[in-house]
């Protein structure tokens, strides 16, 4: 438990701060914000509720920004972003979203982000970016510094972001957000909430479940939040369950599972680099990434399933059975839906095969575990 001292910069609050407090949330500092880590039911129940019904998350701390080409050409804005990320941005259709990473010159990950081509033809030449809260200011500076003339980055601090996740999310929004039910995974559209509040909605999330993210003007988010909570299928979910949900889903947490030293290939994110970019390169660190694609990385992010009940936390050493150090756990804890401990970490090449027996050094004792396939809990995305 850490205390805030007077020397630290004041924490920011999302527009829903007062609602969280009123709901009885435990507020903690996270990425410069005071955020709800859990509500009175607690992480375990919130996690299970999301997997069974629908969980509502305030993720307004995340960075939302528009990258816009003055000539309103998708090709212009896509080329500008492709100089910084390894994903194919050019071939995104209107309203199509893609996961990618901002890379440094060594192919290390500066941040991971979502990129969405504007859903409406009249707004084309614009890409909406959603980046991690802890990285947003550095990301904006990095992007702005590398942009060609005629392309500008505009952060949108006046927009809030909600995530509604879980198998009942689609039913919950069906009557309230026009078009929501018909959307496919990783697509976005412009719509309204209850016919009155304009929003940008994408079918995506960070739990492995079907669900949506809603970008809403900050002044209107309180109404949407309160209205959604009147639905008995919907419960507010804190950052604690957000973390256990994404861990079970095998999704990376920036600053833990990926950082400036890890490449997307080491991190098992090769799927996020499309064919044309692999062949052409033209992104930072392309040489390393193309080499790792061809010859395999030296280490690899893997799932880890401890044999016993003891969780292996971040920082736990991973050893081969004969004692050689293989790597380190980067995320680990208890998976409520798996009903047991789960972890992710990096191991040396040659040990990444699911089923490989390994040891984890927990409190000075070697606990047996094995490399496990990811995700720990099956994804249930609405692919159309």
């Amino acid at each position, binding site marked *: 438990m850490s205390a805030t001292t007077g020397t630290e910069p004041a924490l920011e609050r999302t527009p829903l701060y007062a609602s969280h407090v009123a709901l009885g949330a435990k507020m903690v500092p996270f990425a410069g914000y005071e955020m709800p880590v859990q509500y009175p039911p*607690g992480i*375990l129940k919130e996690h299970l509720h999301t997997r069974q019904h629908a969980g509502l998350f305030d993720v307004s701390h995340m960075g939302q920004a528009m990258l816009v080409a003055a000539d309103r050409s998708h090709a212009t804005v896509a080329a500008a972003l492709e100089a910084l990320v390894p994903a194919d941005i050019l071939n995104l259709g209107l309203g199509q979203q893609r996961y990618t990473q901002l890379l440094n010159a060594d192919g290390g990950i500066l941040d991971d982000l979502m990129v969405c081509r504007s859903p409406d033809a009249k707004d084309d030449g614009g890409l909406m970016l959603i980046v991690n809260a802890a990285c947003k200011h550095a990301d904006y500076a990095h992007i702005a510094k590398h942009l060609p003339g005629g392309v500008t980055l505009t952060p949108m601090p006046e927009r809030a972001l909600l995530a509604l996740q879980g198998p009942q999310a689609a039913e919950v929004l069906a009557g309230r957000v026009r078009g929501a039910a018909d959307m496919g995974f990783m697509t976005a559209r412009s719509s309204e909430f209850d016919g009155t509040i304009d929003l940008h909605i994408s079918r995506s999330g960070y739990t492995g479940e079907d669900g949506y993210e809603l970008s809403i003007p900050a002044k209107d988010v309180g109404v949407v939040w309160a209205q959604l909570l009147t639905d008995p299928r919907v419960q507010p979910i804190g950052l*604690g369950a957000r973390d*256990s949900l994404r861990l079970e889903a095998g999704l990376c947490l920036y600053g833990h599972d990926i950082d400036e030293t890890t490449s997307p290939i080491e991190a098992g994110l090769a799927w996020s680099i499309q064919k044309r970019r692999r062949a052409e390169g033209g992104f930072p660190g392309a040489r390393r990434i193309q080499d790792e694609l061809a010859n395999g990385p030296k280490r690899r992010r893997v799932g880890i399933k401890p044999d016993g009940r003891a969780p292996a*936390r971040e920082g736990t050493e991973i050893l081969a059975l004969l004692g050689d150090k293989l790597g380190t756990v980067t995320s680990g804890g208890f998976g409520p839906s798996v009903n047991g401990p789960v972890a992710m970490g990096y191991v040396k090449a040659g040990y990444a095969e699911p089923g490989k027996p390994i040891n984890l050094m927990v409190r000075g004792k070697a606990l047996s575990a094995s490399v496990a396939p990811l995700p720990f809990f099956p994804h249930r995305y609405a692919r159309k």
Partner: protein
Amino acid sequence: MATERFTKDHEWIRVEGGIATIGITNHAQSQLGDVVFVEVPEVGRKAAQGETVAVVESVKAASDVYAPIAGEVIEVNGDLTGTPALVNEDAEGKAWFFRIRIANPAELDALMDRAAYEAFVKEAS
């Protein structure tokens, strides 16, 4: 009647006939949240005061449990291994962690009674 004592590390101690039963307080379990794993010491272990002898893990984090007084572990609560959530349900009752034969009863004097512990919790929050 049993004597009850508390530590600043949020453990409770119930003393009866030279034997201390030890667990974590209700306040501690509420701060930890959902308990998902408990590791208790081995019977026969001799612990010094303040030594880490058990571990309690919630979804959020792992916490050490210290021996609040020196002594030999004579019994552990095996139920906690299979049902760690018992700690959330009945921290100061059924979810005791271990019992020790007290080596030095004088160590109890420095610990808090319930009123002092409650004041300590109130002050810290």
